[in-house]
């Protein structure tokens, strides 16, 4: 690992570099910037919903734009680039290669993200991250909608290029002495998620083009007025984005596989079952996409098939949970910040999964579908599991990146506040969904239960917001003024770190 901030370099040297740790640093900083941007939008949404009636956002159109950009930003501009950052830092070192397989392609994949992000933020589209036709074709105002389509197109190509790079690096560039069965689980997680990207993303890329030509009026793929079918879009979209859920969650699980054995001071319980569960998840992830569409009028048989496909993913996810718990069992656990985030992430992963089983069961889905239950459910994954795993890993790699330690107390405060906040917001939203509040609404009637639940959720969101401010201050202060890290063993957990902390830095 290269110590970035210990050896100051002019910024253009990092920007034009193709070295994997430099590209990793660019990914890292970009993704964190978008985490704070997208997170701020969440706070605006929660503040607006604190009470019925318009509070701080004047009109529904602005509200619709805000939640659209919030979702798009955090999925495509925080979670995916953050995983790429970790992959860039760790995958070449884990497979013992000097760099990514295609360093220039790596830099190109990164540099597609800022223009993609700019298109999304400058356009500020209003048609939800799902861009439902026919609304997105006949009603959504341009050029915002068109900018969103182009932005997503660019980000999609970027993740395909990144995926190709990870696959080739792991399969073709690993050290000849190393068999694929010896590659660490974090690298395995990138192999699995990259393979999913390669299979899943092209479908959405096609759907986006069709959406664009529909908007231009030259085709009618999804426009019923021209003989098209909006349901076709739903299938194409979810064929990409249900597997995409696993693209997001698998690297986060991989990061936990790196942290949990280290801080438990025990080897992983079962390396093979970790690999097996990754591969199984990336296959069964493709058998469940239409569980998002039970209420679109699907036949009983179709629904049954997709329910079975969805439930089939549960044992694989449960194997990871078992593996983590069995690894911690009888371990001499040191609860430093990265470990706290990982363990918290597992707890919330389990909760989110349990809620998912309820969604998958056909009759129950008609109670929860498109209510706040669903919002709570997938936020427990994206925030509770993926962001928790990612933030924990950021604390873990902080000494390697900066050569300094973060403030441990502030790190723990950050975790505790975020955990309490996440439980308050997203568990409450499950209940709110059972009371029937639909998602994506700017205003709601003054039903006492709805008001109470929304207020609890807003308070929780503000607690997360404050904890994130503490996090930002900790990162900025510690990267310049934190105490110097012992890069041999920054966390004092003993044992041998498997990976050299200083990558060779050949110039390209």
């Amino acid at each position: 690992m290269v110590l970035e901030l210990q050896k100051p370099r002019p910024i253009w040297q990092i920007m034009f570099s193709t070295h994997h740790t430099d590209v990793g640093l660019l990914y890292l900083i970009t993704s964190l910037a978008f985490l704070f941007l997208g997170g701020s939008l969440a706070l605006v949404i929660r503040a607006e919903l604190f009470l019925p009636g318009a509070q701080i956002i004047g009109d529904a159109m602005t509200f619709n734009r805000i939640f659209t950009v919030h979702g798009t930003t955090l999925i495509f501009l925080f979670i995916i680039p953050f995983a790429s950052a970790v992959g860039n830092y760790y995958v070449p070192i884990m497979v013992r290669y000097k760099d990514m397989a295609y360093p220039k392609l790596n830099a190109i994949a990164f540099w597609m993200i800022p223009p993609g992000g700019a298109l999304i933020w400058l356009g500020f589209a209003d048609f939800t991250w799902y861009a439902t036709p026919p609304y997105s074709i006949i009603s959504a105002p341009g050029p915002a909608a068109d900018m969103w389509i182009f932005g997503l197109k660019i980000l999609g190509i970027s993740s395909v290029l990144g995926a190709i790079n990870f696959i080739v690096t792991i399969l073709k560039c690993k050290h000849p002495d190393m068999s694929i069965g010896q590659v660490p689980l974090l690298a395995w997680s990138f192999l699995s998620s990259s393979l999913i990207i390669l299979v899943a993303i092209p479908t959405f890329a096609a759907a986006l083009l069709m959406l664009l030509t529909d908007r231009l009026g030259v085709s009618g793929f999804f426009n019923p007025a021209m003989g098209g079918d909006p349901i076709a879009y739903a299938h194409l979209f979810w064929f990409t984005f249900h597997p995409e859920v696993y693209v997001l969650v698998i690297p986060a699980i991989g990061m936990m596989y790196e942290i949990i054995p280290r801080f438990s001071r025990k080897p992983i319980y079962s390396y093979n079952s970790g690999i097996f569960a990754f591969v199984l998840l990336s296959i069964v992830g493709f058998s469940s996409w239409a569980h998002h569409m039970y209420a679109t009028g699907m036949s009983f048989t179709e629904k049954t098939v997709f329910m079975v496909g969805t439930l089939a993913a549960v044992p694989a996810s449960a194997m990871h949970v078992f593996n983590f718990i069995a690894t911690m069992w009888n371990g001499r656990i040191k609860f430093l910040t990265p470990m706290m985030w990982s363990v918290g992430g597992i707890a919330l992963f389990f909760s989110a999964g349990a809620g998912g089983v309820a969604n998958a069961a056909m009759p129950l889905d008609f109670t929860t579908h498109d209510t706040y239950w669903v919002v709570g459910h997938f936020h427990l994954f994206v925030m509770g599991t993926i962001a928790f795993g990612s933030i924990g890993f950021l604390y873990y790699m902080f000494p390697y990146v900066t050569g300094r330690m973060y403030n441990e107390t502030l790190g723990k405060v950050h975790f505790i506040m975020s955990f309490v906040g996440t439980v308050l917001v997203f568990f409450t939203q499950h209940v709110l969904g059972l009371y029937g509040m639909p998602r994506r609404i700017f205003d709601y009637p003054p039903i006492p239960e709805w008001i109470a639940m929304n207020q609890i959720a807003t308070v929780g969101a503000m607690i997360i917001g404050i904890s994130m401010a503490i996090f930002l201050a900790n990162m900025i202060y510690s990267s310049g003024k934190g105490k110097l890290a012992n890069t041999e063993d920054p966390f004092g957990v003993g044992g041998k770190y498997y990976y050299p902390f200083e990558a060779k830095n050949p110039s390209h």
Partner: protein
Amino acid sequence: MGGHSNWPEWIYIGVIVAIMVWVGAEAWDAERLVEHVPEDAETIIVTGQQWFWTFEYEDGTKTIGDLYVEVGKAYKLEIVSKDVNHSFNIHDYVVLMDAIPGRVNTVWFAPTEVGTYDIQCREFCGLIHYNMRGTLIVEEAST
């Protein structure tokens, strides 16, 4: 891989698989019953458009916003849309079905208690989606 045995993991996976099979079987059985529309159900055509619901009864009358039904009778709702996707929802009776332009989706329910209930749109449909609401009015049986 230490020298430990793997039987705890196999038992655990067995339990998880058993729970999933049970959930799947129960859900399949319940949904099969729920989807069976009674023969004598009265048909009401429900039309969603930005941003209100229209109800057309079997006798040809139409109402906007308010759906009038009688307690104890079964109703089959044929849900259509004039513009974009909507989703017709009476949360208290677990009635939920998307209104998709170009398609006719059906769902049925039988109100069990006299009273008024909220109707709402649960699929994002644009500017006034948040206020695309109506009222279900369940009246005493006329005969």
